[in-house]
């Protein structure tokens, strides 16, 4: 998203000239790698916007209940389906619950489900991907074929089948989404490990007699995780949409949980009549998805400018 203009000041077309390379005198502002990454990230305005969105979402998830005007579960049957007004900024739903307060409460659910399922996907994916990428041979083949099996299930179809057998609930939703996303993580990590493994510093570490596990942990993993990190960030948003879709299919979290997908699924019945019922939840989803996408883009560009 932020293809920075190739500045001639940073690099002309030719590689660093012999003379300049022969003059490795430290400049006073020698940036560390992380500071450099941070610098590149902050340069990207959209990424910063995304970061602000995510921070706000986290703050909302943690402290939202303190500033929500109403109890998100409190029903007011005298005042159902009220259009947005001074008291209920985003209106009330079919049970007279304050939409704004529910959306705030939903932030916590969305963050939790989104992050938790990505977390588990990454956990399984990294563990198996690392094994496959580093040990190669049979372990690699085995892990990759298993990954292929899980990749072959379209996410929604796979998730729905799992929830069919486990029943609705936050945990089944998290598990089913994780079960069908880890394979991508494994693949990404494996191919990135394969290229890192051939890097000189890994050979050097091997030559120095470092143990296999040590090499994986200190040399290979940190350098291979970039695409995984980017993928994970991107996919928090995608996962949140997935949860909403599951709710629409009646396979999401329990109906009384103030979850955006639930609210959307309830609100879609009122399309054309009470549009705010689906519009506001949609906006929360969109903004969240965008926030994570922006940050994912920014991270990708910042971590590895060549990747973009």
């Amino acid at each position, binding site marked *: 998203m932020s293809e920075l203009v190739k500045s001639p000041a940073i690099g002309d077309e030719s590689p660093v000239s012999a003379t300049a390379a022969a003059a490795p005198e430290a400049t006073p502002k020698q940036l560390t790698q992380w500071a450099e990454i941070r610098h590149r990230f902050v340069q990207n305005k959209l990424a910063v916007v995304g970061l602000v969105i995510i921070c706000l979402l986290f703050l909302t998830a943690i402290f939202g209940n303190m500033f929500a005007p109403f109890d998100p579960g409190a029903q007011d049957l005298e005042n159902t389906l009220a259009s947005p007004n001074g008291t209920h900024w985003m209106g009330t739903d079919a049970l007279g619950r304050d939409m704004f307060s529910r959306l705030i409460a939903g932030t916590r659910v969305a963050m939790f489900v989104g992050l938790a399922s990505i977390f588990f996907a990454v956990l399984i994916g990294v563990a198996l991907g690392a094994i496959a990428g580093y040990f190669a041979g049979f372990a690699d083949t085995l892990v990759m074929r298993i990954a292929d099996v899980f990749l072959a299930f379209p996410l929604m179809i796979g998730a729905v089948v799992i929830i069919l057998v486990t029943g609705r609930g936050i945990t089944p939703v998290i598990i089913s989404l994780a079960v069908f996303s880890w394979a991508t993580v494994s693949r990404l990590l494996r191919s990135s490990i394969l290229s890192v493994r051939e890097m000189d510093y890994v050979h050097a570490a091997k030559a120095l007699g470092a143990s296999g596990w040590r090499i994986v942990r200190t040399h290979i993993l940190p350098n291979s995780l970039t695409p995984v990190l980017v993928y994970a960030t991107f996919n928090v948003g995608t996962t949140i949409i997935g949860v*909403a879709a599951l709710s629409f299919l009646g396979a999401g979290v329990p109906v009384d949980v103030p979850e955006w997908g639930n609210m959307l699924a309830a609100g879609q019945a009122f399309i054309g009549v009470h549009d705010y019922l689906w519009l506001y939840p949609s906006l929360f989803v969109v903004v969240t998805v965008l926030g994570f996408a922006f940050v994912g883009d920014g991270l990708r560009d910042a971590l590895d400018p060549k990747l973009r």
Partner: protein
Amino acid sequence: MGRYVARRLGQMVIVLIGATMVLFACLFVLPGDPVGSIAGSDKARDPAVVAELKARYGLDKSLPEQYVNYVSKVATGDLGEDFIQRREVSEILGPKLANTAKLALLAITLVTVFGMGVGIIAALYRYSILDMATTFFTTMAVGFPTFVIGMLLMKWFAVELQWFPQLGGDKLEGMVLPAVTLAITDIAFVARLTRGTMLEVLRADYVKTAVAKGLPRRRVLFKHVLRNSSIPVVTYLGISFGALLGGALITEAIFNWDGVGLALVQAIQQQNNPIVIGVVTYSVAIFVVLSLIVDLLYAALDPRIRLS
């Protein structure tokens, strides 16, 4: 190339076996009572009836036996008989497959034409109003859940404006709304992907070479840029087509499109396992086959893959 194809075919078979095992495990090993749903839940469950039903559906055998039975039957195209209408599953699913395929074909056409078209234009006129509009549209399309998009399209274009029929049917105009719903997210993804790879390829040295050779702009674009930028896009399109052919749960439900996705949603509600198994097996298989085709296509497009 021949060996490569053979190896990929072998992998495909392994993946299919693995996927059917996973599915089988989900449906029959995890808690749940497949017979309950056949016997009719609100009806006397006469032990004799249950036993007979079990025998009829082969549920009285051990799991491995059931699995082997099932796989050997599936291999010959026999998916058994469904629990509700008691018709041959293959007979039930046959027309549905055709319907899903029709929709998928139109959708992927839309995705290819509009996704790539918009992406190319956005890349060529980078930072123009058009590019910004594209970015805006694509982020929105990615962020809004499919079911909201689908219901809005139906509401606006079928119910209010009546430009398109509300329910599908076999005519092209009946397919437009569901196909657009199905395509819209992918159009956004493909547009972004095309734009990204185009920009990357436009920066490539060989494009500079092509310009330096004095080639007309059109030739540079359509010969040197497009072929190279189409490689990742074609991969995405292929995978996406595989997923589309696997059935669209939400879109088919919204537009009452009699495809495999809708069949799956209903079968899950009715715990009609033969249909569930049939659809999932099919969508996994089609996905795997498409992945294979994509890999071969990739090799055809990029000699570096083909010849290494």
